[in-house]
């Protein structure tokens, strides 16, 4: 049982085959995995990562979005914000990471069958780009068109607009990119939700996928309510298990049954991506 594989869930220790510093305290790890793992990967899904030793501090695994994958590897982008992420960021090429996943639902499919594709606005704030980028990389790696797809990407400063170079490759597939920084060091000066609000005025058809800090997601939700657009938010609630058993990650949402009823949803299994209208912050 050292490494298991059941249906589409994997539990294994992965070798770090590449490590790259993307910005101060932000690293990309490329981890070795099987093809089946990559087949189960999907934009917006995530993995629980742990340190492969027998020590108990840190104790729990930590959730990170699947950013990109290809046959025998997958990549995660990790920002050092605390004890768990610090440990992962300290690992070097050749080291080993305990992996559990892919987990979660991921972003919904774009309906391409009806001929007409509605415009798609991808909204990323800070580290939210790791999740949003997975959508773009997935298209890039399968050579799918990204016409009518817009990336609105905000970060604290130019240095933290990570992955931008690589994402720019998707412009050839039709992607259009607008950046904004808190300090004006790249693109406009301000918050990414300002771009979103302005662009939505001319796009009542656009669907939105957003990932970023809770404050940003709240603001996206408000903007969508005004515009009446359909949108999806990728949440990052704290998780203990990542597979639906601890009830630690739950989010209050409007009940499916309608009538304004309220219930809790597990972000790890029913999310992390939720229809924006369902989420009650």
């Amino acid at each position, binding site marked *: 049982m050292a490494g298991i594989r059941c249906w589409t869930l994997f539990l294994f220790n992965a070798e770090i085959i590449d490590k790259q510093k993307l910005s101060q305290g932000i690293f990309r790890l490329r981890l070795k995995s099987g093809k089946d793992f990559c087949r189960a990967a999907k934009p917006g899904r995530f993995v629980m990562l742990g340190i492969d030793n027998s020590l108990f501090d840190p104790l729990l695994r930590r959730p990170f979005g699947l950013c990109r994958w290809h046959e025998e590897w997958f990549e995660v982008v990790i920002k050092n914000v605390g004890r768990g992420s610090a440990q992962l960021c300290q690992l070097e090429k050749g080291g080993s990471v*305990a992996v559990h996943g892919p987990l979660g639902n991921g972003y919904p499919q774009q309906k391409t069958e009806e001929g007409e594709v509605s415009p798609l606005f991808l909204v990323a704030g800070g580290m939210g780009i790791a999740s949003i980028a997975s959508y773009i990389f997935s298209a890039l790696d399968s050579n799918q068109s990204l016409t009518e797809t817009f990336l609105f990407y905000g970060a604290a400063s130019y240095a933290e607009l990570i992955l931008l170079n690589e994402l720019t490759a998707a412009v050839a597939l039709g992607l259009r990119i607008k950046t904004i920084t808190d300090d004006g060091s790249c693109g406009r000066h301000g918050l990414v939700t300002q771009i979103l609000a302005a662009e939505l005025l001319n796009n009542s058809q656009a669907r939105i996928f957003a990932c970023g800090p809770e404050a940003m997601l709240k603001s996206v939700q408000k903007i969508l309510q005004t515009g009446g657009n359909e949108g999806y938010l990728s949440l990052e609630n704290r998780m203990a298990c990542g597979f639906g058993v601890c*009830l630690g990650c739950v989010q209050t949402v409007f009940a499916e049954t309608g009538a304004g009823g309220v219930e809790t949803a597990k972000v790890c299994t029913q999310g992390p991506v939720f229809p924006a209208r369902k989420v009650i912050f």
Partner: protein
Amino acid sequence: MVDLTVEIAPGLILKNPVLTASGTFGYGREYAPYFDIAKLGGIITKGLSLEPKTGNPGIRITETACGMLNAIGLENIGIEQFLSMELPLLRKLGAVVIVNIFGQEQADYAALAARLDGVEGISALEINISCPNVKAGGIQFGTDPAAAAKLVAAVRQATSLPLITKLSPNVSDIVAIAQAVVEAGSDALSLINTLMGMAIDLDRKKPILGNTTGGLSGPAIKPVALRMVYQVASAVSVPVIGIGGIVNQRDALEFLLAGATAVEIGTASFINPQSAALIVAGIENYLDRQGCKRVVDFIGSLEKNPA
């Protein structure tokens, strides 16, 4: 081949001494992709109440040094939905099912026990007494021997299922509580539930958990759990099930040495969903290498220090 069977209540023989701790194994279904849950001694469900319960608002979990705090607030789908939606699958999977129950007052517990009495596919009840007794002004059932005994007696009246009473560690004298509930008819004891703790977000100047306090679990509490299991197992004659910070077979075997007839795996299952299954295999392997033929011979075989 080591004989791993243990009897944790009169007539309730488990194929091995490894159970899953309530609230850390969902309703069992979530683990099916990771291993054959029928291979465990048994599974203990998330705590169930008469009605569904939504649990606590705000942040519910936070990691601490070698442990975690949870303030889930006993969220659960309620007994009826469990029986109609979850139990059939568990039966199909072949799991030995023990239902963990809790209530706000004694009558709730008795009603739950009555409802579950005679239901096929349920092997025993685990009574969580670490709950505030609303009728008695919020004092926990589990901290007062008399209240705990009354509760257990009421449950005993309501069902013929084997009863395991799950003890709270937040007490001055766990042996007194243990003796009281055994006297009241509990067939076995399980311990420990979580230690009450708290965490603070320094920079925001706020408690981290929405509920302010929460239950501490994980390796951090193992020494306390082991001490209490040792004390209780030395004092009562019914089987004791050890819980608290068990993450591998060595931890589990220590509890067996201390006198536990079985163990429950909790937080470890969050870190590695296969933990319980790995521990079954690990116990077997260890005893085999020791030339021990039956786990029951190992149980309680801790040498005492010279007095």
